[in-house]
């Protein structure tokens, strides 16, 4: 009897003992990934999973330089209309299909022509592919495209097995087959995605876990609690407000990198009937709004100082940031003067729509009280995100608190928002000169020309302020102390090459 009780106790203790199996790395994500097909997927967390499962033609360094992955070298022709890539010769897909130039051609074709593909616009500059040898391929472009390498360093450049893709069609995402260091093992929606080590990976020695398990844990407190209790090895997007708690825990280390994205307030300048309002019609009001903000204080109050203040599409540490327009200091007098000049000496109302989640609401409450000192009376309309997005897209708003997760190439942060026909230009801002400048930056492979174009566009945008930028999020990862070799990247991805776990 007592023996039985003892065994039971031992079993129970064994079951509740925390340390996970040595060979499994457990990563907590903020949300569940969507469909696991690089050509169809849209979520940020999905990209985190792909980083270990689907290799790309090129990768980036922490400093956002391009570096070889499946392509060993690449060259643009003189006129920028041809891109030739040489490919690794020791790569096979998870199903054994060899990786070669034909496979790349099939992948480009799939991204461009599969009905459900989300990658069409990203690869729209490619008008033809020419297999030059077993491991050499040329892309023919309609016009020079400076953004192409960045696209090939993301989902559009992820290579899936042509054999598996042809078999599965649009259902490929239920059982994805790529060529990365880990292959797909199983997925239980909203519970876990499990990858297992791919023994035939060309660089398998660099990857030290037998399996990697991704678990969606949306609540930041619970995510951190799981790390602290030892159930999880690594969590992404630690809340800035939890930073202190994580740093004071001896068993936890914290890593961070300023993201490529931004957050701000988009004004409806000309989107439908509601675009015809004082805020949309008079840039001086938008300028006043920007001057009334104390970005440093916002960062301190809402984000414990962990994020980066910002006033442009790119964060201040980006090489594309225009130093002609540093983050402005708060200037209430100037804001008041601008309001008076615009005909509102007694102040003016402004309705801002905001996602109904904690951080945006906190942010906007701080903003609300700040700008009130200049005479801007902000009323907040909180909306559930899908509704906010639909209203914004339809022009049913005056101002909207929204952001962008950011892209490796600067074009991805600005062109589609600020050009007249831009796909996500919900402000419907339109300026012929900005269009010309941003198009030029997109089609030149000369970095100096690009930089100059972006600076010139910024001069106009800084005056017009269709989007008042406020801050740039910092990716914060918290890791169990036993994890070694983790490198933070500004794209927020988790790269596992060289990452190990001490067994203790």
């Amino acid at each position, binding site marked *: 009897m007592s023996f039985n009780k003892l065994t039971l106790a031992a079993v129970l203790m064994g079951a*509740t003992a925390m340390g996970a199996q040595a060979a499994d790395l457990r990563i907590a994500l903020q949300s569940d990934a969507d469909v696991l097909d690089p050509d169809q997927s849209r979520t940020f967390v999905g990209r985190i999973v792909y980083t270990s499962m689907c290799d790309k033609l090129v990768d980036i360094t922490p400093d956002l330089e391009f570096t070889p992955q499946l392509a060993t070298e690449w060259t643009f022709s003189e006129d920028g209309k041809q891109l030739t890539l040489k490919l690794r010769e020791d790569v096979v897909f998870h199903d054994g299909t060899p990786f070669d130039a034909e496979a790349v051609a099939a992948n480009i074709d799939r991204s461009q022509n599969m009905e459900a593909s989300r990658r069409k616009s990203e690869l729209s500059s490619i008008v033809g592919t020419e297999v030059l040898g077993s491991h050499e391929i040329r892309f023919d472009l309609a016009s020079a495209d400076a953004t192409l390498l960045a696209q090939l360093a993301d989902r559009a450049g992820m290579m899936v097995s042509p054999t598996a893709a042809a078999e599965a069609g649009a259902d490929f995402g239920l059982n994805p087959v790529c060529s990365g260091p880990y292959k797909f093992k199983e997925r239980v*929606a909203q519970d876990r995605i499990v990858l297992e080590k791919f023994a035939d990976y060309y660089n398998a020695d660099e990857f030290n876990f037998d399996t990697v398990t991704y*678990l969606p844990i949306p609540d930041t407190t619970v995510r951190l*609690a*799981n790390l602290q209790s030892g159930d999880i090895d690594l969590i992404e997007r630690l809340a800035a407000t939890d930073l202190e708690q994580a740093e004071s825990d001896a068993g936890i280390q914290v890593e961070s990198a300023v993201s490529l994205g931004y957050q701000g307030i988009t004004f409806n300048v000309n989107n439908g009937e509601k675009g015809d309002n004082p805020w949309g019609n008079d840039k001086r009001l938008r300028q006043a709004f920007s001057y009334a903000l104390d970005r440093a204080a916002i960062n301190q109050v809402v984000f414990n100082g962990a994020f980066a203040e910002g006033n442009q599409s790119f964060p201040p540490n980006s090489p594309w940031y225009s130093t002609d327009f540093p983050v402005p200091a708060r200037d209430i007098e100037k804001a008041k003067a601008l309001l008076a000049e615009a005909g509102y000496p007694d102040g003016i109302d402004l309705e801002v729509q905001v996602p109904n989640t904690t951080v945006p609401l906190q942010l906007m409450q701080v903003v609300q009280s700040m700008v009130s000192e200049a005479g801007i009376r902000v009323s907040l309309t909180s909306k*559930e995100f899908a509704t906010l997005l*639909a209203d914004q897209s339809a022009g049913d708003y005056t101002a909207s608190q929204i952001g962008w997760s950011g892209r490796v190439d600067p074009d991805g942060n600005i062109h589609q928002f600020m050009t007249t026909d831009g796909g996500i230009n919900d402000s419907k801002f339109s300026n012929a000169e900005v269009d010309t400048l941003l198009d030029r930056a997109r089609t030149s492979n000369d970095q100096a020309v690009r930089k100059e174009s972006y600076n010139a566009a910024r001069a106009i945008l800084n005056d017009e302020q269709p989007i008042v930028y406020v801050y740039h999020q910092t990716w914060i990862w918290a890791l169990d102390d036993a994890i070694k070799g983790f490198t933070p990247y500004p794209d927020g991805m988790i790269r596992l090459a060289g990452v190990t776990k001490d067994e203790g």
Partner: protein
Amino acid sequence: MLSFIMRRLLIAIPTIFLISIFVFALQKLLPGDPVLAMAGEERDPEVLEYLREKYRLNDPIPVQYFTWVGNALRGDLGISLRTNQPVLELIGQKLPVTIQLATMAMIFALVIGIPAGILSAVKKGSVTDYVANVVALSGLSIPNFWLGIMLILLVSVKWQLLPASGYVPLSEDPIRSITVMLMPAFVLGTALAATLMRHTRSAMLGVLSSDYVRTARAKGLVERRVILKHAFRNALAPIVTLTALLFGELIAGAVLTEQIFTIPGFGKLVVDAVFNRDYAVVQGIVLVTAVGFIVMNLLADVAYVLLNPRLRKQ
């Protein structure tokens, strides 16, 4: 008995039909475009249009509804807009999880609620009664999410006794599966335990003051036998009905509990589906829940009849 069950089943059909129309209509009233919600940051108009066509979102709403009903009758609940997984498969994955959670929570509720109710009825007016009442009231008033977070911080982070969240299937590792689910089941069970305790107490009080209990005592039965055999058995009928109704509340409570403890169950599935405007998933879940609820009530009625012989003749 059989005709009684058949009659109840027939009544269930129009009920389920009405529920499905209601939910379908409600969803269409929600602002927000499912395809846009799905697209997130990438809004290629051509792809959006393709998806609207593919999921037949351009059809008139009645046509969309009847297409859904037609498919559902053939056992096809459609596929999730978000993950492309068949809805039936998703429900099949999630239902056992929530059933396990609900069952464990119910066990907590019954084990705590009924003895506490009997005790406080028998010792009416004593300290035990007051303490039980205060505890019950607290159980009802403490919000699920607060208790959940507090337990995680205390039991998992500070004492490191139980895992903070997650789920392990029963089939994979039964002991760990139950261990992981202890905290959420407790959190979910406490509020129900309080309700059960209060109802058990009042049912028992009613029965304890009746004539036959006095008779039982007068003929010299031991008190224990009077309470459990004579009084409790008769107080049980309303408690059984309540327990069945509470199962509905359990499913609703599971929505919140599953969010806190990151349990991939039914509740989490429905919340995420609503936010993503994943219509097919929401419809499927509501259908299954409605059927489940009707079945639970039917079982309660059957149990009622079994417990009360007088009803058998009618």
